């Protein structure tokens, strides 16, 4: 018996060729957006101006509190929106990326606030004494030091984002899990001409798990390693 059954080879190839890049693309967009928005909001949250702080706090609590699936479905089903002549209608792929970014940016904002506040105030004073303004002080002095503390949770966030891209499956994006499901439907309906054995779903969904495990496990180890090395 060959290591990989005949019927499974095209299935796995389809999943790796079509599904996996889509998963990684959504994850990359969500990661970049989450870090950019989250760092900004988290830093702004340390300003002692309560309307701004409460506004960002509300943003963080809402997007962290809602299950990501609810956010994504909400965005996906909202009717088309016209701003002037600009027609706004997000497709499934964009809805998933936006939903994940809202959730991720809330997580990053909360972590950033903690990291920025953990920097001793002497650092602020020293930077101010050197003539840095608020932006320069944070950009060149505070955030680079906060990054040290932020790196482990960021890697953890990346793992979470990669896993949560599977939520795009629900609204029909052809990511890794969806690609597996489509192939599962193909082989069990006999469309491919190959006769799939009864254990096909076990093997296909097992392969989906394996795929995510291979990506996420090294990242989890990396996060644990960074935590030990960088913090303190």
């Amino acid at each position: 018996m060959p290591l990989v059954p005949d019927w499974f080879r095209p299935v796995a190839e389809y999943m790796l060729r079509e599904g996996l890049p889509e998963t990684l693309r959504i994850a990359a967009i969500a990661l970049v957006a989450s870090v950019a928005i989250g760092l900004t909001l988290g830093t702004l949250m340390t300003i002692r101006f309560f309307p701004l702080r409460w506004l960002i706090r509300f943003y963080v609590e809402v997007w962290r509190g809602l299950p990501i699936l609810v956010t994504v479905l909400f965005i996906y089903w909202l009717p088309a929106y016209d701003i002037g002549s600009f027609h706004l209608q997000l497709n499934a792929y964009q809805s998933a990326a936006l939903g994940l970014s809202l959730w991720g940016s809330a997580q990053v904002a909360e972590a950033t606030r903690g990291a920025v506040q953990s920097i001793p105030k002497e650092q602020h004073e020293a930077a101010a004494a050197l003539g840095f303004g608020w932006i320069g002080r944070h950009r060149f002095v505070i955030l680079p030091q906060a990054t040290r503390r932020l790196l482990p949770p960021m890697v953890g966030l990346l793992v979470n984002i990669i896993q949560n891209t599977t939520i795009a499956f629900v609204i029909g994006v052809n990511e890794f899990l969806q690609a597996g499901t489509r192939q599962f439907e193909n082989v069990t309906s006999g469309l491919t001409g190959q006769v799939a054995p009864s254990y096909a779903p076990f093997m296909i969904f097992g392969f989906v798990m394996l795929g995510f495990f291979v990506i996420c496990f090294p990242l989890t180890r990396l996060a644990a390693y960074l935590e030990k090395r960088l913090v303190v």
Partner: protein
Amino acid sequence: MFDRSVHILASFEWSVIWDNRGLFWDGFKHTIKAGALGFVLAYVVGLVLGAVRAHRIPVLNQVAVTYVELIRNTPILVQIIFLYYGLPVLGVHLETFTVAWLSITIWGGAFMTENFRAGFEAVPPRLREAGYALGFTPLKAFLNVTLPIGGRIALPSTINTAISVVKNTSLLLIIGYPELTYVANSIQSNTFRVFEAFSALAVCYLTIVWALSALIRFLEARLALPEAL
């Protein structure tokens, strides 16, 4: 843009939510049923395996590590689908409700194990040794020394995991378990009132999640260890 937002607010049909209050209530009960069961069982799994991990009990420790790493590094949505579509191949046919509570228990249990392991390991060994010196058996020492102290250290992080367990019930939509998200999604597709259905849904989830977050802050204040160990 302002016109449009006024339009959405003005055309907000409260009747969509009011007329479907029975459906929402049923969904809420299903969410709570699966969520509460998963919540409690995840604590049980986490306490037992967390103790196994912290005390490095041979064989069981390796089994626990494998379980935790496997669950933490794969998406819960895939785990649900695997239980629902993959297991019947092995002759294991599970009902929708069984998959519902089982999947979130398995997921929550893995994270709880790590929460409790960290809590138990944070208890200084000298406290346990003091217990042994008083003639406690290892089990008694765990129940009387490690558990009360380590459990309190682990409590806030375990409630965070529990909140995630409740939020994850929304994913049970894909196996047709009629919880809140499933209900809101079907109301939305029947009435096309997306904004109304999902606003009500969001309010339900935020109420549950924010109430549990408030509980964390309350417990953190109440159960804080009196002095540094």
